[in-house]
């Protein structure tokens, strides 16, 4: 039995299954949390009727979405249209694999973990693009065009900030990066505050969250790229969006806050606490700031984040060369 468990393939399968469970459960929790946060900020109770304090509401919503008819719009590119939501959600377990919840609770320790996450989360853009193209709908197409230009722009500051941390730790292995920051005072957050702020802004934009939710801008584009999707087609897009939020917050926790490290009793719970704190902040952003205009969105990226990121990277490289 232990011999079987030692087999890396078996470990991988177990990790993937556990991650799928984690993904499903967190999707439900996040939907509930998002609705509670918006409710509380608007002085409403949010979902309340299904289950205690509406806890079962996302479950009921999920059942509703599963039960709905899947409609393909007339003139849509059928294979691409249905490929898009699947393509959006498929890389999610892969992106979770290298994230270390604790030294032991790591799906797969990879020496290129950071690159793997960034590469496969980039697939989501393709999915949104296909969704917009395949829907035969002008709103979807506009949403997809926005998604592509936004993601292409904001991947650069994201990479620049990640590079700073990689320079500092000399590794792309998330376990090693987290291991370097034991003790709350050694967190990269204190060394690279500017990088953290830029990473968080770029992450909000990368996950198409408000105030950067232009690809789905409800008030202009109905629902943007997923306008035409019914039932689980829409459900998968939403699940993927929440999952990419968790992935990017998990990355932020590892890169800047020491991963599983905490003031007392380090362990996976600190990772979960950090991820959820950042998710709460993202939700807080969403219900505070109005959506930016598209030129503003690109101005923030090209005129502020990228120059600042480059300067930060150069400074980091210089200091590491001199000190290290």
């Amino acid at each position, binding site marked *: 039995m232990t011999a079987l468990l030692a087999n890396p393939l078996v470990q991988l399968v177990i990790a993937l299954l556990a991650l799928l469970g984690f993904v499903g459960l967190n999707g439900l929790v996040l939907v509930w949390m998002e609705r509670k*946060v918006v*409710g*509380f*900020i*608007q*002085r*409403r*109770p949010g979902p*309340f009727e299904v289950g205690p304090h509406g806890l079962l509401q996302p479950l009921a919503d999920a059942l509703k979405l599963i039960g709905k008819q899947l409609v393909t719009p007339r003139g849509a590119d059928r294979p691409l249209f249905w490929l898009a939501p699947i393509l959006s959600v498929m890389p999610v377990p892969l992106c979770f694999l290298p994230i270390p919840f604790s030294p032991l609770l790591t799906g797969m320790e990879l020496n290129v973990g950071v690159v793997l996450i960034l590469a496969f989360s980039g697939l989501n853009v393709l999915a949104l693009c296909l969704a917009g193209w395949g829907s035969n709908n002008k709103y979807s197409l506009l949403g997809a065009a926005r998604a592509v230009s936004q993601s292409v722009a904001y991947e650069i500051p994201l990479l620049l900030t990640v590079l700073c941390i990689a320079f500092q730790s000399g590794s792309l292995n998330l376990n090693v990066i987290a291991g370097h920051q034991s003790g709350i005072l050694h967190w990269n957050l204190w060394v690279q505050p500017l990088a953290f702020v830029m990473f968080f802004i770029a992450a909000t934009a990368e996950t198409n969250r408000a105030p950067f939710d232009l690809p789905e801008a409800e008030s202009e584009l109905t629902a943007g790229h997923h306008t035409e999707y019914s039932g689980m087609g829409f459900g998968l897009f939403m699940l993927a969006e929440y999952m990419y939020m968790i992935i990017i917050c998990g990355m932020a926790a590892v890169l800047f806050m020491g991963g599983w490290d905490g003031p007392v009793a380090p362990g996976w719970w600190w990772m979960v606490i950090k991820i959820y704190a950042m998710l709460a902040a993202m939700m*807080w*952003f969403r*219900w*505070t*700031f109005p959506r930016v205009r598209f030129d503003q969105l690109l101005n923030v990226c090209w005129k*502020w984040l990228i120059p600042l990121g480059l300067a930060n990277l150069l400074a980091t490289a210089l200091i590491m060369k001199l000190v290290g």
Partner: protein
Amino acid sequence: MATLGQTIKSLWSMVVGMKVTGIEFFKPKLTVHYPRKEVDNLGTYRGHCDLVAREDDPLTPKCIMCGICVDNCPSGCLSLTMHVVGEGKPRPAGGAGELMLAQEVILPGSIKKAPPTGKAERVLDSFRLNYNYCSLCGLCVQNCPVSSLAWSREAYLVGRSRQEFEFDLLARLRAKAASSQGVKAA
């Protein structure tokens, strides 16, 4: 340099915004959970119009059958019939005829003044409201010269058919009086 100052100012405004929503988050919730709790300001609710009884007789409305409400209603959902004592035959109120409004009422500035009832004693036979067409504009209540119409406070009015929203307001008044008297007697 000016751009930098502007940027810092804008960033600070974002912090202020976060503070505002952050404080709202922890304030008590305002929602009233309806089936378990009810709002306490139903007295201000403006439902459909309802007849008001005379102070001396809870079974008879204050209505003087002038027909202003019927004429004013833009949706035409009010109708009333009455008869002159001695004639026996009911007829609709308002419009042309020997029961035309007195000069005092028609003249400007005569709003809310009761017209003289004249010689003939009139009896209200029915006062109907077709609530299906009512737009709740309130012209009937506003213009009743003797305040015989008022808003009902029924916020939770429901029904399954159109017929349930065709009210006989006179019967409603009498039923209400009977039930309140029943309560008093008990």
